[in-house]
C-alpha cells in the first residue's frame, strides 16, 4: 500500500500546471468568450506539443502510453485554471477508443493526427451535449451501442446556451452511416467513459481548490467592523467545511484513477464514489466562495464567476451526485449477501 505519486507524475503535472498558468488566464478566457470561440487555439497547441492530448495513446501512434493515474494530477491542474479545452473528450475518450479499434477500421493517419492534437474531436459519449463541437474536426457518436466517428461537416450542431460561457455545448443531429461506423472494443468504451468521469471529478477538485484559495485570500484582506471578515467564526467554519470536503474527496479521486489504471474489480464503484464526493465538494466550494465574497462575487467583472460557473457545470456533467449515488447503491445495496459488520 503506497499512496504516493511518482516523481515523474508530479513533475509532469507541475510542468503542465506552469503552462496553464501562463496560457489559461482570466484574460485569455474572457477574450475567448468575447470572440464567441469554444477554445483557446494557442493553448490547445501548447498542450498538444507537450504530449498531453495524446498521452493516453500508445507510442506506436505517437502517444505517451500513459494511464489514468498519470493523468489525474494534470486534470486537477486544468480545473484549477478553468481550462476550457476538450481534453476529457479527446484524451480520455477519443484516443483510447480509436487507438484500440479493429485494425484498418479507422485510417491510421487520422488516429495519429488525433493523438498529436493536430485534428480535434468532441463527443456525446457519456454526456448529453458535445463540448466545443464547433472547434472539432470529428465527432465520436453513439447509436444503438455502436460507435461512429463522423466528420463535423456531416452533422448539424445547435448551440445550447449554458451558464458557463467558457464551456460551449452543442446538441448534435446526425444519421449513422456504414462508412462512419468504427468497430470499437466495448470494454475500452466502458473504461474510457469511467476515465472521463474520473477526470471530471479531478477537474471539479481543481476548481474547488482554486475557489477555496481565492476565498481565503479575499477574506484575509477584506475588512469590516475594523477587522478582516475572515476573523469571524461563521466565515471560518464555512471555509473549514469546504476544506474538509476537498480533503476527503481527493484521495478517492486518486484511488479511482489508480483502480482504472490496474483494472481493479472495484473500479466502477471507486469512480462513482469519486465523482459523487467531488461533485459535492465543488458545489460546497461554490456556495461558500460566493457567500464569503458577498456582492463582489455576484458580478461578471470579478473573475470568481468563471470558477463558480465551471464548478456548477462540472458538478452536474457526467453524472451528478445523485446519479452516482444510484450506481454505488446498485453495487452495494443490491448484493445478496450481508457485509461483515461485527
Amino acid at each position: 500500500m503506497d499512496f504516493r505519486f511518482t516523481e515523474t507524475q508530479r513533475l509532469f503535472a507541475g510542468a503542465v500546471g506552469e503552462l496553464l498558468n501562463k496560457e489559461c488566464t482570466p484574460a485569455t478566457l474572457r477574450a475567448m468568450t468575447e470572440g464567441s470561440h469554444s477554445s483557446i487555439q494557442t493553448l490547445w497547441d501548447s498542450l498538444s506539443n507537450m504530449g498531453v492530448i495524446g498521452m493516453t495513446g500508445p507510442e506506436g501512434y505517437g502517444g505517451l502510453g500513459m494511464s489514468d493515474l498519470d493523468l489525474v494530477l494534470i486534470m486537477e491542474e486544468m480545473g484549477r485554471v478553468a481550462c476550457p479545452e476538450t481534453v476529457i473528450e479527446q484524451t480520455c475518450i477519443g484516443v483510447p477508443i480509436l487507438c484500440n479499434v479493429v485494425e484498418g477500421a479507422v485510417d491510421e493517419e487520422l488516429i495519429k493526427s488525433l493523438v498529436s492534437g493536430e485534428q480535434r474531436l468532441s463527443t456525446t459519449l457519456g454526456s448529453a451535449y458535445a463540448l466545443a463541437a464547433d472547434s472539432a474536426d470529428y465527432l465520436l457518436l453513439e447509436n444503438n451501442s455502436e460507435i461512429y466517428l463522423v466528420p463535423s461537416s456531416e452533422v448539424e450542431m445547435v448551440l445550447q446556451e449554458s451558464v458557463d460561457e467558457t464551456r460551449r455545448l452543442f446538441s448534435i443531429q446526425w444519421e449513422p452511416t456504414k462508412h462512419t461506423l468504427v468497430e470499437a472494443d466495448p470494454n475500452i468504451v466502458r473504461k474510457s467513459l469511467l476515465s472521463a468521469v474520473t477526470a471530471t471529478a479531478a477537474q471539479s477538485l481543481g476548481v474547488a481548490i482554486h475557489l477555496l484559495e481565492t476565498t481565503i485570500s479575499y477574506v484575509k484582506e477584506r475588512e469590516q467592523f475594523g477587522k478582516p471578515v475572515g476573523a469571524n467564526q461563521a466565515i471560518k467554519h464555512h471555509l473549514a467545511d469546504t476544506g474538509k470536503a476537498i480533503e476527503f474527496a481527493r484521495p478517492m479521486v486518486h484511488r479511482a484513477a489508480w483502480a482504472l489504471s490496474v483494472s481493479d474489480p472495484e473500479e466502477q464503484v471507486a469512480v462513482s464514489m469519486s465523482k459523487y464526493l467531488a461533485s459535492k465538494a465543488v458545489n460546497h466550494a461554490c456556495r461558500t466562495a460566493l457567500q464569503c465574497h458577498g456582492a463582489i462575487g455576484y458580478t461578471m467583472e470579478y473573475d470568481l464567476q468563471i470558477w463558480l460557473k465551471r464548478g456548477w457545470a462540472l458538478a452536474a456533467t457526467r453524472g451528478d451526485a445523485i446519479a452516482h449515488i444510484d450506481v454505488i447503491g446498485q453495487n452495494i445495496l443490491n448484493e445478496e449477501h450481508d457485509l461483515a459488520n461485527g
Partner: protein
Amino acid sequence: MDLAFSTSEIEFRDEIRTWLNEHKPSEKWLAMDTEIGFEQHRTWEHKLFESKWSVPNWPNEYGGRDCSLIEWLLFEEEYYLSGAPGRVNTNGITLLGPTLFEWGTQDQKDRFLLPMAEGKEIWAQGWSEPNTGSDLASLSTTAIKDGDNYILNGQKTWCSRGAWADWIFCIVRTDPESQRHSGLSYLLVPADAPGITRRPVSRLDGEPAFAEIFFDDCQVSTENLLGGEGEGWKVAMATASSERGLNLRAPGRFLAAANQLVNLYKRLIRENKKIPPELFNKIVDGYTAAQAYRWQVFSKASSLMHGETMGAEASYMKIFWSELDVDLHATALELLAERGELLASAPDAIAEYDWMSGYLFSLSGPIYAGTNEIQRNIVAERVLGLPRK
C-alpha cells in the same frame, strides 16, 4: 502509487482475523463502564496482550509487534468487523502511550508502557474541569512542589473510565502565579493516592462512564511528571493530535457501522418494508463517506510512513469521523422508524445491533477531544491560515 495490500500486509490481516474468530468471547459482557464489565474488559486486554495483539504497533520490548501503520489500520478494521469487545484502555494505549513514547524518560517508559499494554493499569484522562472545557488553558487545579512530591488541589470532571481506572493522566498548574498556557505540567497520578475522591457520573445512556475527581492535598511523586515542569501544554498537544487524528479513530469502527447500516437496509427489504429514495440516498452517502474516511486515512498513513508529519490537519479527521458516526446512526434510526426509539433489551428490537445506544454514543463524538466548533477554528486558523482576530 499502489493501493493493493502487499503479501505481508494480507498475511498480517489474515492472522488477526483468524485469531479474533478463535478468541473473541462468545457471551455478551456487561457494559465496559460498569464495575463488573470494567473488570471483564480488563481480562480481554490481557488476553490480547498474551498474543501480542493489545498494542501491535508498539515496539516488541513493550508488548507490541512493531507493525507498520498500514498493518495497524488493517488490525483495527478486522477488530471492529469481528465484533470483539470494546477496548477499555483506549485512553492509555492511544492517547498516553504515544505521548510517553515522545516525551517520557527511559525510566517512565519502562515503568508505564508494559503494564498499560497488559491491561494491568487502565488509564483515565484528567483534563476538563468544571470551568474548563474547550478552553483548556484556563484550568485551575494546582500542583505545588513540596520536596519530592507535588501537592494537588482542585477538581477534574468528565473523566471517561474515571470511576474504575487505575491511573489518571492530568494537566495541572504547577506555577500558581502563571496564566494560561505557561506554568502547566503533565502529571501521571495513581487513582488510589490519598486525597483523591472519585464520584461516578452517569452518561446520557445511564452508564457511569464519567467520573468527577477531587484532589484534596493529594501527594504525587515528582517522578511522575511527563516532560519538564511548565511544559504541560506542549506535551498535551502531542496527546491532543493523537486524540483527533488517526491514533484514536482508525476507520474500522465506522466501516463496521456503515456495513451494519447496509445490512439493516437489506433486512428491511427482505421484510418487504418500503424504503423511501431519500433514505436510500442517505445510506449510500454514509457508506461512501465511511469509504472516503478509510482511504483518506490510508493516504495519510502512507505519507506518515514516508517521513511526513501530521499537524493541525488532524482536526479535519476529528470533524469527519465524529459527524460521520452521528449520520450513520441517525440514518439507521430513520430506517427503523417506530422501532428506532427502542433499546436493545426491548422484545421488538432488532437484535443485531443496538442502534439507539450507538446513536447516543456517537453524539459524544462532536463534543469530546475538543468540540467540532473548536476543530473548525483550528482548521481555519492553522491549516487555511485565516486570522485569529
